[in-house]
């Protein structure tokens, strides 16, 4: 059974990575790349509460939740890709035989319930905060913002070197082309958030030094949610009479779910990893169907429940009360198809699916820093100095697991205003130095160009007159895709820039 679990973990982890790499142009597969995110009950549960709307895309999450009632926390032990990463990480950590006092130390176990109820309370009052804690989101994010860019950096570095040498050029190119068509983005993704996201993730792994699956035991609110639902599970850990009370099962237990009496385990904590089955010398342990005989107390008192509610509300109050920089807010250009801002923040779980798929086409989406306030940290914004929104692309809406970005038709998207472009006449070449330039107008993708010209004579520094095409934006046409800013040849601050002004949002379906 332990081997079956390991194979399951491996398969689901590889499947997770496979789906991860599917989120790229042209995205023609029929499997949704955000399937794992949509299967996280925490994502499903909380986004529906915080947005007060039924989100169809997260139905798989409720299938998992329903299955948990009879089957227990199989998701944690057998599927969760973060759990698998933690298991692999834990396997590298050499541990001394734990002292009895350490095994009895379960003081932090309540924390995950505390976090869950704090998040739940906050979400009832419309502050969605699972983005910081959901394990699937955490893993997807660190992969997208840190590990993937490093992978790309190394791979493209290798190819740059190979192309410079020029040896076996045809073979090098075909290999390069293969990678370009499968895993490499259109340009090297670079994110400001990389370091912080990595530190958070590294913290989770470092906690493994304290105990096995420290995150899962004590912190993960998804585990807490599944634990509550698995209280009355129908899989029971059965210990036969051949048990010699050697205690090996208790030491091997990843979740420290086995009690002093080795025949009893905590069904809220047990993730059915079957380590205890494998480790038992007389093979006395097995898992069977039937009403569980384990202890099934949820390690959470009423007082703690109230405390966590207060914590959630305090967090909400602090975040909502914080100042919002209006200049920064102008830079928070949401992807095309984004729903109205408040609802957007309720739904956006900062998983970076949209950011990653965008990196394979226009590459404009970046996780925000503080452009959309504390509430919007790491939510996607279009940064035209990095990339631009491809006119014929709407992939971000196709991979959003919670419908924060709606999957709209291309026809609709091409008319949807993300923002509006403005000329900076103190920097734009024709305005600044009375010479034609027009790069912005050249690239403007609208069939009727949103950049028009005022053609007139201008006095040049030597006193002569010259006919110059002075560009201006027709704001009735501009959709704010940002290609003008992106391609503007002015060095430093560009001669044209896009802001979120006049942006149009889509009402959620």
């Amino acid at each position, binding site marked *: 059974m332990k081997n079956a679990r390991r194979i399951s973990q491996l398969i689901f982890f590889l499947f997770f990575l496979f789906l991860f790499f599917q989120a790229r*142009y*042209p995205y023609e597969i029929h499997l949704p790349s955000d399937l794992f995110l949509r299967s996280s009950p925490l994502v499903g549960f909380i986004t529906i509460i915080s947005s007060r709307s039924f989100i169809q895309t997260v139905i798989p999450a409720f299938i998992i939740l329903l299955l948990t009632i009879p089957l227990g926390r199989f998701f944690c032990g057998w599927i969760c890709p973060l759990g698998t990463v933690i298991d692999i990480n834990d396997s590298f950590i050499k541990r001394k035989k734990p002292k009895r006092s350490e095994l009895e130390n379960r003081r932090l176990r309540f924390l995950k319930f505390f976090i869950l109820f704090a998040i739940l309370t906050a979400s009832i009052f419309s502050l969605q905060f699972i983005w910081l804690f959901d394990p699937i989101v955490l893993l997807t994010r660190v992969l997208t913002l840190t590990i993937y860019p490093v992978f790309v950096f190394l791979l493209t570095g290798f*190819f*740059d070197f190979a*192309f*410079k040498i020029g040896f076996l050029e045809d073979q090098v*190119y075909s290999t*390069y*082309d293969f990678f*370009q*068509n499968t895993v490499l983005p*259109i340009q090297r993704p670079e994110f400001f958030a990389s370091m912080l996201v990595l530190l958070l993730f590294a913290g989770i792994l470092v906690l493994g030094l304290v105990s096995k699956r420290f995150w899962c035991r004590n912190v993960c609110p998804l585990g807490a949610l599944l634990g509550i639902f698995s209280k009355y599970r129908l899989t029971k850990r059965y210990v036969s009479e051949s048990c010699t009370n050697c205690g090996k099962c208790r030491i091997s237990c990843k979740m420290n779910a086995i009690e002093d009496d080795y025949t009893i385990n905590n069904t809220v904590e047990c993730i059915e990893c079957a380590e205890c089955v494998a480790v038992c010398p007389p093979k006395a342990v097995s898992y069977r169907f039937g009403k569980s005989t384990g202890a099934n107390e949820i390690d959470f008192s009423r007082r703690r429940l109230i405390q966590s509610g207060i914590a959630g509300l305090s967090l909400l109050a602090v975040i909502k009360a914080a100042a919002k920089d209006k200049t920064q807010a102008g830079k928070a250009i949401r992807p095309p198809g984004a729903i109205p801002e408040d609802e957007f923040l309720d739904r956006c779980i900062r998983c970076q699916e949209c950011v990653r798929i965008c990196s394979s*086409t*226009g590459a404009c989406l970046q996780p925000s820093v503080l452009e959309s306030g504390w509430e919007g940290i790491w939510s996607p914004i279009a940064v035209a100095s990095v990339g631009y929104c*491809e*006119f*014929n*692309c709407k992939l971000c809406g196709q991979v959003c697991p919670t419908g924060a970005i709606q999957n709209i038709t291309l026809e609709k998207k091409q008319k949807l205003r993300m923002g509006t472009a403005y000329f900076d006449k103190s920097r734009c*070449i024709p305005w600044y*130095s009375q*010479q*034609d*330039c*027009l*790069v912005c*107008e*050249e*690239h*403007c*993708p*609208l*069939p*009727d*160009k949103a950049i028009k*010209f005022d053609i007139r004579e201008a006095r040049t520094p030597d006193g002569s007159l010259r006919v110059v*095409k002075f560009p201006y934006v027709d704001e009735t046409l501009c959709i704010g895709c940002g290609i003008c800013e992106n*391609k*503007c*040849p002015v060095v430093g601050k560009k001669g044209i820039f896009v802001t979120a002004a006049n942006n149009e949002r889509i009402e959620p379906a």
Partner: protein
Amino acid sequence: MERREFLKKSAATGLLISAADVLNYKLLAQEAPLDFVVIKNGSPAQLVRKAVEELGGMGKFVSKGQAVLLKPNIGWDRTPEQAANTNPEAVAEVVKMCLDAGAKRVRVLDRTCNQSRRCYQRSGIESAAKKAGAEVRHIVDSRFSEVNIPEGELLKSWPLYRDVLEFDVFINMPIAKHHTISGITLGFKNMMGIMGDDRGKIHKNFHTNIVDINTAIKPTLTIIDAYRILVRNGPTGGNLDDVEIPKVVIAGTDRVAIDAYAVTLFGKDAKDIEYIQNAHKRGLGQADLSRVKMKEIDLSA
């Protein structure tokens, strides 16, 4: 080799070369080659095939075993009907002709403005050229190398794509379309697709810069696809109302004359196009159409 022998041999070679020049001159005088041809009213493939045949066949430009670089305009994520990129059927036909002439390889590439894979696919060029036997390549950033431009007035050097320097034959194959900077974009402007770095910079003083770049690289053959032309809102287009279908291909070796002719399709005069006049003055070709040897053929006639 002894010095004496060397001198003798060089003298003999020199004589031979000058003799060949004289001979060549006579041949030229008998039948001066065409500077360019204009073929009208046919399918894109028919038009380019006829054009190359009239110029003496592809064998005149491509010898057996040579490597050919074909540079269409694949700049935009647009369909062939929108006339923002070179016609894919015409590109495929040129590929076939090169291979039939014995080319060892025909490589098709362009540095695109939109995402390259989108452009290669939607333009139809990737599939058509591959089917015809070409190797379709995407630009690799590390394959640009800085090239000196001795004749450059403003641009003294620029990174250019290495393939252009390494390949034996270079065929420039733009589409004729509207462009605000020069009125229209043709052969000269199409050369921007082999430029590295931030090429938008050259739009400032465009009419000098674009000639500078063209002094660095001379295409063996220029073929302008004017089967469909974009007459407004170029170079991207997008509205089919802005597309006209004159069904014309212009091909030849005098790139200035070719561009000068192509502007007439847009109801303009080369005299008013600054870069064409600059290129003429700097000796890159003949802008005065009354002084070129050309031929017009109407396939429907």
